[in-house]
Each structure stands twice: as structure tokens, then as C-alpha cells.
């Protein structure tokens, strides 16, 4: 059941992105930025946590989940150390994903080369 919800919720979040691409003039970079900010907002108002509980990776893998992670991190840090937590909480929670992207990016640059799209 977990798997089915992961597939359906994850797919549905992507469909919303596709509708934005096809029906608006938003560029992919703007859509990604919008998704992360929306994830922060949805998490802040308490709507995203139930979705993650239901769909697992279906809600945490799309970029909305990245926003949720940032928001949750800030909330926990503020709980622990007060106002300074707004500086440390978000990126601490998201550190794994960001560091992995940088490291694998550098590794790919070391080995890979730019390829023709033909």
C-alpha cells in the first residue's frame, strides 16, 4: 500500500508541474524554485507532514519535499536554540542532499564530458 501511494502521489505532484510547463510561460528553473518555496509554505501550515506520512518517498522525493525538509529543520532548530535556529535549521536538514549533489557533480565533471544531444 505504501508503494502504491508513493507512486500515485509522486506522479500527481509531477503532473501539476507538467501542467504549469504546458499552460503557463514558467521556465523549469522558476517551477523548481516555486516548488521549494511552496513546500516550505505547505509544511509551515501543517499540510505536508500528513502527505509524507501517507506517501513516504512519494511526497519527500519531489522538490516540495525539499521545502518541507527545510521548514521542518528550521522548526526543530528554533525549538532547540531559539531565534538563531532560523540560520542553522534549514540547511542542516538539507545538508545531505546538497552535499551529495556537489560531490557527485564534481565526480561527474572529473570523469564525464559534454555530449551532443543528437
Amino acid at each position, binding site marked *: 500500500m505504501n508503494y502504491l501511494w508513493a507512486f500515485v502521489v509522486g506522479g500527481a505532484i509531477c503532473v501539476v508541474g507538467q501542467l504549469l*510547463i504546458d499552460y503557463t*510561460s514558467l521556465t*523549469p528553473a522558476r517551477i523548481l524554485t516555486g516548488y521549494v518555496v511552496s513546500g516550505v509554505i505547505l509544511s509551515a501550515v501543517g499540510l505536508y507532514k500528513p502527505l509524507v506520512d501517507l506517501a513516504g518517498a512519494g511526497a519527500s522525493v519531489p522538490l516540495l519535499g525539499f521545502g518541507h525538509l527545510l521548514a521542518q529543520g528550521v522548526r526543530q532548530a528554533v525549538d532547540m536554540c531559539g531565534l538563531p535556529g532560523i540560520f542553522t535549521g534549514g540547511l542542516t536538514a538539507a545538508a545531505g542532499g546538497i552535499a551529495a549533489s556537489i560531490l557527485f557533480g564534481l565526480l561527474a565533471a572529473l570523469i*564525464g564530458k*559534454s*555530449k*551532443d*544531444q*543528437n
Partner: protein
Amino acid sequence: MAIRRKDTVIFEKPPVIAAWAAAGGKKESEGPLAEGFDFLTRDAAFPDENCSNWEQAESRLQQKAAEACLRKADISRKELDLVLAGDLQAQCTASNYTMRSLQAPFAGIYGACSTMAETLCLAAALAAGGVVHQALAMTSSHFCAAERQFRTPLDYGAKRTPTAQWTATAAGACLLRNPGQAGVPVLSITFGRVQDYEVRDINNMGAAMMPAAVSTLLRYFAATGTQPADFDAIFTGDLGQVGSALLYEQMEREGIPLPNHRDCGCLLYDVQAQNVQAGGSGPGCSAAVLCTHILPALRSGQYRRVLFLATGALMSQTTFLQGESIPGIAHCVELAGEGTV
């Protein structure tokens, strides 16, 4: 020597295109005009020739076209009086680096996708005036160099919209000579005026450039008293399927329908089968169609009189991000069948 009628310069004694050559990459070698190319490669990265980036690769492609053209004209590079060349890269570097090895007097020209017609117009005027005896008009574009400069990294995952056009990996070169020599005569030239109808969609260049094509055509027809039926074909450069459809509609509205119109962006590739969305684009696109199809047909007698109208979109990455609309331009070259003038 030449008569000026409004924006059109008519050569009483027309200069000629004595030789021409085209070079292309993989997609071009799979397209309907493949047989007309003088040089084709399956790997336009040129790894065997010490190219380490796409900018160098484009320059190498342009060199191939220049060398083939000189070979066909049976002259050495030392006999060139002038080379007019340009491309899409910032500061026209593909052409600059080509000229580093070609070592001939050189003037760099930027006209985006209209560069082939622009260099041809200038070289023809200089040859007609006797200022130069042998001048090369040349341009190129490379899909990968254009993509990384204007859009996104090549390995970035993005879906293309149906109105987007595919930048050709191609180069074309034409050798111009003085009136009276053997070759395809250039009867007249018309420099275009910049037209901007507030199109902002960078994925719909055909729409951005169409008004420029109409503007130049109307001025040309009015200045010369000609009409579309006087030509075997009217070629526009790079409007693609969307821009071409818009062109028909607008010319109908102006009362001058274009039944004999062909678009270079729709000729270079099999638009349905080759996954190029609305068609080809880039300076190399119209240059390649000129050198693989139009000029050979004018030499063989298949065509007796045509218009070659290359269109260019004159924005930059910076002006695009600043929200500016896309200005377009179209330059027109009137060509006659070899031996008909």
C-alpha cells in the same frame, strides 16, 4: 554600376557566386539535403582533430567549409581579398578562430541567423564595385555551442516546446567574384530593417522573425515592381513551420500570397521524423540550404530566378533575461540561374 531603388540595390552588371561549399554534422547527414554537402561528420566534436570544446568544434566545421570552397574554386587562401564571416557565438569567436588559420583580410559580421544573406549582400556589393576580386562570405552554427551559450548545459534534462527550433550544426561558404566571371549571378541585394512586434518567447523564434521577412519582401517587391510569380522559389531562412505559417497568413493579408515559398528551416531536416520540433535554425541552417540546394539548382538550370531571404533574431541572453522583446531582421539576395544573365 548599380542602381539604388529604395532599400534595394540592383546590379546592372551582377557579381557572381563562383563557388560554394557546405559542411555539416550528424543530424544534417541524416537529413534530406545530405547529398549536397561537401563535408559531413558523424561526430561534430572533432575529437580526432584536437578539439577540446564545442566552440573549437564549430570553428573547425567552418574551416572545413572554407577549405572545400577554396578547393572547388581552385584557388589558395592567399588569393582571397576579403573574408566576411560571422556566427552565433559571443563576439563571433567561431569565425575569428577560423580566420586565425585562414590568414586572409577579414571583417567579422553579426546578423544571427541572417548572417549568410548579410555577408553575401556585402561581399556582392564589394565585388560589383570592383573593390575586391575574390571575397568569401561565410557563416556557421553548432548545436552544442549554441545550446550551452543560449540555453542550458547539453546534459540538462529539458523538454522542448513544439515551437522551438533546432540549431543546425553546419557551415556554408560562398566565393564572390566580379561581374562577367562564371558563376551564379547576384542580381540585387536588399538590407532589411529591424522589426519588433513584441514577441518575447525565446522558444518561438520563427514568430519573432516573421515580421522582418514580410517587411523586407514588401519593400523588395515595391522597389522592383516584381511579384512572387516572377520567381521559381522564394526561400526564407529559419522561420520554421510556425514562422512559415505566419508568413503565409500575413502575405495573404498584404495581398501578395506566396505560393512558391520554401523555408530553409523546413528543408534541411525531415521535420516530422528528425525530432527538430518546428524546424532548423542557426546561421548554418540557411547557409547549408543555400550551398547544398539553392546554388546547385541555379547552376543546373532547375531554377532561373530565386529570392534568398535569411532572417535573424537579434536578442542576446542578457536582453532576454531583462525581459526585452526579440527584434528580427531579414536581408534579401536575388539570385539568377547560371548563364541566364
